[in-house]
C-alpha cells in the first residue's frame, strides 16, 4: 500500500493550502496552472478517500500524532467524503474551464492574488469537511469565509463591494455565534473533539448553557448556510461575484455550513438534548418550507438571471433542510443526496452563465435573447442542468426529489402537505427555468454588435462535463446514493430509536 495513503486526510487540506503561498511567488503566467493542478490533485485525493471510505469505513487521522481529545483529529466518513467530492469537483471544474472568464473579470495583473484566495477557499472548505474538532472547524470556516469574500469582491461590478461587505458582516456574526456556542459547550464538557463532546455532553444535556449553545450554533451556522430568513447576504453576493467564482461558491460554500449544522444537530446534540428531535423538526421545517416557497417565488419574478438562480439556491437549501428535518433515514438520504445533486445542477448553470454572459449585453432576462442560436451547445447544457434543477426524471435532481417525496410519504397524512410543498416548489422551478429558456430561444436578440465571438473550449468542456454528470447521476446514482444512505445511517445512528 502506498505509504501516503494513510496521510490522505491531511493531504486533502494541505495540498491546496500550501499551494496558495507558492502561487504568490510563482511567475504570474503560472498562477492559473498551479491553482488548477492543486485543485485537480485535491479532487484525486478526495476520490481516493471516497474509495477508502466505501471499502473500509471511516478514516481517522491524528494531527501531529497527538491522541484524540488532546490533539486535533481529522475524520472522514461517508458524509464528509460526499462533501469533499462536491467541493473539490466544483473547484476543479470551475478552475479548468474558467481561465478566460476570470481573466476578463479580475484582470491579469492581480489574478495571482485571486487564485491564491481561491486555493485557500478550497482548502478551508475541505478542512471543514475533514475536521473532527469543533474549534478547528471554526478556524477553517474563517479561512474559507475570508477567501470567499475575496472571491466575491473580485466581481467587475462595483456593486460587488457593498454585497461582499454585507456578506462579511453576516458571515462574521455567524462565525462568532458559532464560537460562542462551542465556548459554552466547552465550558460544560471541557473538550473540543466532536466525538468526545458527544459522550461528555450526555451528563449535562439539560443544563441551560448547552441549550443556549445549541441555539447559538444553529443560528450561527444558519447564517453561514443562508437558511431562510438569514439568506439576505446570498443573492447579491452571488450576483456580483465573478461568474466562475459564483459557480464554485454556489456549488459548495453554503453546503459546507449545512454539513457542520447536520454534524452538530445529529452527532453532538441529537442523542443528548431532551426533546431535541422535536425542536429540530419544529424550528427548521417551517423555515425550510418558507425557504422553498419564498425563494422560488422571488426567483419567478426576478429579472436578473444570476440573482434568479441565487434565489433558487435559497429554495434548494430549503429542500436540503426539509429532508434533514424529517429525522428519518429517507429524509436524511434525500438531504445529503440533494446536497450533491444541487451542486451538480447549480454549478453547471452558473458555469453556463459564465459562458453566455460575454456574448450578451448584460444579465437581464431580455439580454438572453437569441442565446440559443448564438451558443446552441452551451445553451443545451444549460437546459440539461436546468431540468436537473427542476427535478425532471433522467437527471440527478429527480433522484433526490424522489427520495424526499418518498420520505415525506412515510409520514402519512402530514407528509401530503410536505409533498405539496415539494411539488409546488418544483413547479415554480419550471416557471423560472423556463423564463430563461424561452427568452434565450425566442427573445429578440438585442442589437449590440459588440459581442465576443465564441465560448472558450475549456469552458464548454467544463459545462458539458457538469451537464453530463447531471444526466449520469440521474440514471446511475449508485455512488452518491451509496454515500448518502451510508451518511444518513451514520447520522441517524446517533439518534435514539
Amino acid at each position, binding site marked *: 500500500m502506498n505509504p501516503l495513503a494513510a496521510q490522505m486526510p491531511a493531504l486533502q487540506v494541505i495540498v491546496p493550502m500550501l499551494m496558495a503561498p507558492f502561487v504568490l511567488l510563482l511567475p504570474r503566467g503560472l498562477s492559473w496552472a498551479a491553482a488548477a493542478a492543486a485543485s485537480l490533485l485535491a479532487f484525486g485525493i478526495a476520490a481516493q478517500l471516497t474509495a477508502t471510505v466505501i471499502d473500509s469505513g471511516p478514516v481517522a487521522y491524528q494531527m501531529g500524532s497527538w491522541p484524540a481529545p488532546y490533539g486535533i483529529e481529522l475524520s472522514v466518513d461517508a458524509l464528509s467524503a460526499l462533501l469533499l467530492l462536491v467541493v473539490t469537483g466544483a473547484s476543479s471544474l470551475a478552475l479548468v474551464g474558467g481561465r478566460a472568464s476570470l481573466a476578463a473579470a479580475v484582470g491579469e495583473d492581480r489574478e495571482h492574488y485571486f487564485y491564491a484566495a481561491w486555493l485557500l477557499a478550497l482548502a478551508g472548505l475541505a478542512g471543514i469537511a475533514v475536521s473532527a474538532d469543533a474549534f478547528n472547524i471554526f478556524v477553517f470556516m474563517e479561512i474559507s469565509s475570508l477567501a470567499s469574500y475575496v472571491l466575491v469582491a473580485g466581481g467587475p461590478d462595483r456593486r460587488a463591494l457593498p454585497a461582499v461587505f454585507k456578506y462579511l458582516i453576516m458571515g462574521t456574526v455567524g462565525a462568532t455565534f458559532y464560537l460562542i456556542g462551542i465556548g459554552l459547550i466547552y465550558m460544560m464538557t471541557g473538550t473540543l473533539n466532536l466525538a468526545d463532546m458527544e459522550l461528555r455532553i450526555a451528563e449535562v444535556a439539560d443544563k441551560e448553557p448547552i441549550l443556549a449553545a445549541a441555539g447559538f450554533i444553529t443560528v450561527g451556522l444558519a447564517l453561514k448556510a443562508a437558511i431562510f430568513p438569514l439568506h439576505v447576504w446570498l443573492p447579491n453576493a452571488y450576483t456580483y461575484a465573478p461568474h466562475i467564482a459564483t459557480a464554485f461558491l454556489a456549488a459548495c460554500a453554503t453546503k459546507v455550513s449545512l454539513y457542520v449544522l447536520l454534524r452538530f444537530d445529529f452527532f453532538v446534540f441529537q442523542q443528548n438534548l431532551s426533546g431535541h428531535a422535536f425542536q429540530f423538526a419544529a424550528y427548521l421545517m417551517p423555515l425550510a418550507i418558507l425557504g422553498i416557497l419564498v425563494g422560488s417565488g422571488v426567483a419567478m419574478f426576478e429579472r436578473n438571471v444570476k440573482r434568479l438562480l441565487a434565489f433558487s439556491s435559497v429554495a434548494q437549501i430549503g429542500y436540503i433542510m426539509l429532508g434533514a428535518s424529517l429525522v428519518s433515514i429517507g429524509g436524511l438520504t434525500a438531504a445529503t443526496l440533494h446536497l450533491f445533486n444541487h451542486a451538480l445542477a447549480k454549478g453547471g448553470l452558473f458555469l453556463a452563465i459564465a459562458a453566455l454572459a460575454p456574448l450578451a449585453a448584460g444579465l437581464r432576462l431580455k439580454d438572453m435573447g437569441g442565446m440559443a442560436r448564438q451558443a446552441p451547445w452551451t445553451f443545451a447544457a444549460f437546459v440539461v442542468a436546468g431540468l436537473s434543477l427542476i*427535478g425532471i426524471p433522467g437527471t440527478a435532481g429527480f433522484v433526490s426529489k424522489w427520495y424526499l417525496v*418518498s420520505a415525506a*410519504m412515510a409520514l402519512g397524512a402530514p407528509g401530503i402537505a410536505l409533498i405539496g410543498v415539494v*411539488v409546488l416548489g418544483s*413547479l415554480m422551478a*419550471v416557471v423560472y427555468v423556463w423564463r430563461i429558456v424561452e427568452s434565450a430561444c*425566442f427573445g429578440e436578440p438585442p442589437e449590440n454588435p459588440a459581442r465576443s465571438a465564441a465560448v472558450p473550449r475549456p469552458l464548454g468542456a467544463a459545462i458539458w462535463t457538469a451537464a453530463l454528470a447531471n444526466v449520469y447521476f440521474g*440514471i446511475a*446514482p449508485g455512488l452518491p446514493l451509496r454515500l448518502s444512505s451510508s451518511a444518513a445511517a451514520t447520522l441517524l445512528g446517533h439518534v435514539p430509536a
Partner: protein
Amino acid sequence: MSAQQTILVAVALPLFGALGIALAARIGANFREAATLLTAAALAYCVWSLAPSLLEGARPAVSVAEVLPGIEIAFAVEPLGMLFAALASLLWIINSLYSVGYMRGNREPHQTRFYVMFAVSLAATIGIAFAANLFTLFLFYEALTFATYPLVAHKGDKSTVASARVYIGVLLTTSIGLFLPAIIWTYAAAGTTDFAAGGILEGKLHGPAVGLLLALFVLGIGKAAVMPVHRWLPAAMVAPTPVSALLHAVAVVKAGVFTVTKVIVYIFGIDYLFASPGTGWLVYAAAFTIIAASVVAFRQQNLKRLLAYSTVAQLSYVVMAAAILKPLAEIGAAIHIVAHAFGKITLFFAAGAIYTAAKKTELHELRGIGRRMPVTMAAFTIGALSMIGVPPTGGFVSKWYILAGAFEADNYVALFTIVASTALNAAYFLPIVYMAWFAPESGKPPPTHGEAPWPSVLALSLTAALTIAFFLFNGPVLELERQVVAAP
C-alpha cells in the same frame, strides 16, 4: 438480431436518425429529407418485425439500468404498446412524406430543426410505447414534452411563443404536480412500478385512496386532455400542420390515452378497479369532456381548432372506454387509438393541404373547394365519416366495441354519451363536407389553385385508404388486443 436488441434499436434509431438528419442537412435539403424517410422506414421495419412473435404470445423485455432500488429503466413489449408503436412508426413514414410537401410548399424556416426534433419526438414516443414500468414511461413522457416544444413554437413569433408556453406549462405542471406524485405513491404502496398483467395495486390501497390515486393519474397525464387539462391541445395548433397531424393527433395525445389505458389495465387492474368504490367518476369525467368538447368544436370557425376540439372529444372516448372496465371496452379503447389516428391524421393532412394550396383556414372559406381539390376533400370526407363512426370506416369498429363494453357493464351514461356525441360529430362535420362539395364557390377574384404538392396529396390518400382498410382488415389487431384482457 434478438428481440431485446430490436427493442433497444427501435428506441435508439430515431435518435441516431436525428443526428444523421442534422449531418445530412449540411449536404443539402434533399439528403435531409432522404435521411428522414430512411430513418422512418428503418424504424417501422424494426417495430413491425416484433409483431409476429408477439401474436404468438412472446413478451420480450430488456433492462437498461437500475436507477434506484426497484426502479429501472427497462423496456417490455406487450400488445397495447406494440399497437401504439406500430401505429406511430407507420404514420411517421407517411407524415414525413407529407412534411416534405408542406414545409417546402409553405417555405417554412428552420426546417432542419423541424426534422431533427421530429425524430427525437419519435424516439420518445417509441420509448413510451415500450416502457416496462411507470418510471421509464414518465422519463420518455417528459422527453416527448420537451422534444415537441420547439416544434410547437416553430414560428417563434410572440403569439406562437405564448401558445407554446401554455402547451409546455400545462403538460409540465400536470405531469410534475400530479402524475409524478401518483407514481411515487404507487411505488410507496406496491414497492414497484412495473406494468404487470392484472395490475400491481390489488389489495395495497383501500377505500377512497384508490379513487384519489386514479384522479392523480388521469389528471396528471395531461396529454390525455381530459377536461379541465385539455387547454394545451388547442394551444398546440399554432404548430405547422404536420406537427399537429402526427404529434397532436397521433403521438402526443395517443401517448396520453395510451398511458391512461396502461395504468388502468396494468397498474390498477380492471377487476380491482371495478370492485373498488369511488372510481366510477372517471366515466362521468370522460363523458363530460366528450360532450363539452363536441359542443365547443361545433362552435369553432377555424378548421384546425375544430379538429383540435374534436380530438379532445375523441381522446375521452378512449379514456371512457378504458374506464368502463370491461374486456370488450378495453379492446375498444385500444383499437379506437388506431381508428381515430387514421381518421384524424387524414383530416389534418387535408386541412394542411388546403392551407398550402389555398391559404385558407376558416370554415366559411371552404365553400365549393371540393371542386378544386377533389382528392383532398374525398379524403377529408372519409376522415369525417370515421370520426362520426359510419361504416365503412375504422371509426365504426372501435365505437362498436365500446358500445358492446358499455352494454356489458350496463353503463347507460356511456351509452348515452356515445349516441349523443355521434349526433354532435355529425352536426359539425357534415355541414363542412356538404359545403365543400355542393356550395357555390365564393371569393373575388375566383381562386385558381389546384391540389397541394403531390407528396402531401399522396400522404393523405394513403391515410384515407388506411381508414377504410382498418374497417375491412382489423383481424390481427383485434387478435393482438384480446391478449391484453385475456386472463393473466
